């Protein structure tokens, strides 16, 4: 009994090992390549405000949308045992709604309007999330197939909302959301990620949602027999992911004050799924650790920034990325884990006999 709990605690901990090792390797590699890689300094931006600057800040800041999406993706993966591939398209829809509302008052952008725009884009994204969720939970369609619909047509819907390519908005409030609040040297997207993290931490701390999601993911029938509304839980996980999409879309739009329905968070669905996988979460659903996905997302962003800093030729970037990802995924695979576990046990067995006796 004692041994079992020890083992599962270790397993729990080892889940974070892969993303942590990935980040650590990237850190060591970069420190060897360029010792000043992680130096963070303070400069004055063109608005005259002091701001933090450096590769570390670029990584934390640039990963914001991916981190937020991978939080939601973790929930969907855990509850439904499948992935939502429409998150990029849904973020583009949310961003378009955000811009549409902001442009509705003929250019005058007030704080109230921004809040209203966010609430509306959040509601729209949650509705689309509910649509995806309903297909998955009520109609029992494979999540990847169900979300393929929105993946295919989402960016066209985003185009219809505003019409025309790349509508722009400009306002101090928007740049405060997308880059810096005057007087605050930390980029706002990083702060938003922290807020989202606190939100989910509180949600799991004070509700049983986390447990319910795991239960539904592990065995839907058993969950239902125990009085858990499996359909509702799955639906809720998709709605929460929808909310994450709206936040990511809002940040993406606010960074530059521009929405390009074709390129906003393009291909991010694959990175979000990858973050969940690198984070050691089973893509087949069940137990999950959101922190793992978050670390996975930062590892992916750190990799991208490293490749930029190394000036890898544009034609080769994807190949380099693929090599690293293959290594990470293999490192986290059950087969390797098993082997490592076996080697560890064997090494442990050869250690002082006294320790073995004690355990026995």
């Amino acid at each position, binding site marked *: 009994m004692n041994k079992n709990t020890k083992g599962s605690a270790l397993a729990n901990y080892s889940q974070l090992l892969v993303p942590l090792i990935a980040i650590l390797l990237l850190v060591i590699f970069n420190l060897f390549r*360029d010792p000043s890689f992680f130096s963070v300094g303070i400069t004055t931006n063109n608005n005259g405000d002091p701001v933090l600057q450096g590769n570390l800040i*670029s990584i934390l800041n*640039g990963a914001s949308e991916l981190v937020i999406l991978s939080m939601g993706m973790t929930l969907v993966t855990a509850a439904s045992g499948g992935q939502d591939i429409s998150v990029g398209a849904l973020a583009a829809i949310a961003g378009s709604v955000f811009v549409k509302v902001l442009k509705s008052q003929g250019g005058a952008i007030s704080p109230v309007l921004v809040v209203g725009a966010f609430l509306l884009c959040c509601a729209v994204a949650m509705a689309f999330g509910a649509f995806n969720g309903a297909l998955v939970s009520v109609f029992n369609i494979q999540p990847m197939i169900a979300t393929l619909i929105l993946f295919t047509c989402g960016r066209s819907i985003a185009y219809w909302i505003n019409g*025309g390519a790349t509508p*722009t908005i400009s306002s101090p409030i928007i740049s405060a959301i997308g880059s810096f609040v005057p007087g605050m040297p930390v980029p706002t997207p990083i702060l938003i990620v922290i807020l989202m993290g606190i939100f989910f931490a509180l949600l799991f701390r004070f509700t049983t949602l986390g447990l319910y999601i795991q239960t539904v993911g592990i065995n839907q029938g058993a969950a239902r027999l125990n009085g858990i509304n499996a359909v509702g839980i799955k639906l809720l996980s998709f709605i929460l992911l929808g909310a994450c999409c709206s936040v990511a879309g809002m940040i993406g739009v606010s*960074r*530059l004050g521009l929405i390009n329905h074709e390129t*906003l968070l393009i291909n991010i669905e694959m990175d979000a799924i990858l973050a969940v996988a690198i984070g050691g979460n089973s893509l087949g659903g069940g137990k999950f650790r959101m922190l793992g996905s978050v670390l996975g997302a930062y590892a992916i962003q750190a990799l991208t920034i490293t490749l*930029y800093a190394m*000036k890898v030729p544009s034609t080769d970037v994807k190949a380099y990325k693929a090599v690293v990802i293959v290594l990470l995924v293999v490192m986290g695979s059950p087969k390797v884990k098993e082997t490592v576990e076996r080697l560890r046990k064997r090494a442990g067995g050869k250690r002082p006999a006294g320790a073995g006796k004690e355990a026995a």
Partner: protein
Amino acid sequence: MKKIIAVALVLVMCLSLIPAAFAADDLIKVGVVNNPPSESGYREANVNDFISVFTEENGYDASFFYSIKNDEQLSAARQFITDGVDYLLISAAETTGWDAVLKDAQEAGIGVFLFDRMIDCDPELFEAAVVSDMAQEGDTAVAWLLSLELPEYNVIHIQGAMGSDAQLGRTGALDEQFEAGTMTKVVQQTATWDEAEAKKIVESVINSKEPFNVIYAENDGMAKGAVAALDEAGITHGVDGDVVVMGFDCNKWALRELLAGNWNYDGQCSPFQAQVISDMIQTLEAGGEIEGLNEAKQIISVEKGFDARELTEEDIATYGLGE
């Protein structure tokens, strides 16, 4: 009973032909096969250009078909031939597979014009092609950059999606300068048209503390991303700034950045081909011959490039894309 129905049907058919016959008398029937306007800002401007030129007031009865798929475009072209259009205007989704349709058109005596994109086929099969020379766009931009006579050129080059026509055309001229040693490549990286990615690339250069004084972004969105990185790092840019900013496409909002002096240059691949084609059709209708074609029967559109110091509000209204 059957006879009566047959006679009635024939009568109906004859009647339905009358308006068509009338229409054919005074209006030139034109079928336009194009890519959908949602494809890009460029395409939207292109589509609107054709709609505004081929109007009834200008003497045309025009039908439009949009698809990004070659096979759908092919069947639409066949339908236009069956409908008996006088001229067929095509911007093909793919360069191959058009031979049979173009031959049908030729046999039916329909004049074919290609615009924006070439088709791999015998030049005998079409009257003329109005196309852009993508390389010319890059040449124009790089020539402008050289004309600034900066003491040194340390260039951050942000590329579009690798292998696309626009990327190849806009990259070529700059690559020549890098090879010749007249300009120094600080970084050359693709952001695949993604604005946010362009910002990250420029950030990584700023963080490496390498000096640079030119940003050559292959579209407006990526230039905007690059400028956002400069703004956050407190680096001045534009007409009186430390860094020269160059973009492409000439969106209206981008030209306004030029007018405000935040950027230095914006190049354009001209989406305006309708008037040139309309002029050629009028020449043919008047019994004349089309002049000014090269061996491949092409007319190369003249590409624009705007310098922030010379740009006017009027230019923005005339040449700017989008709102």
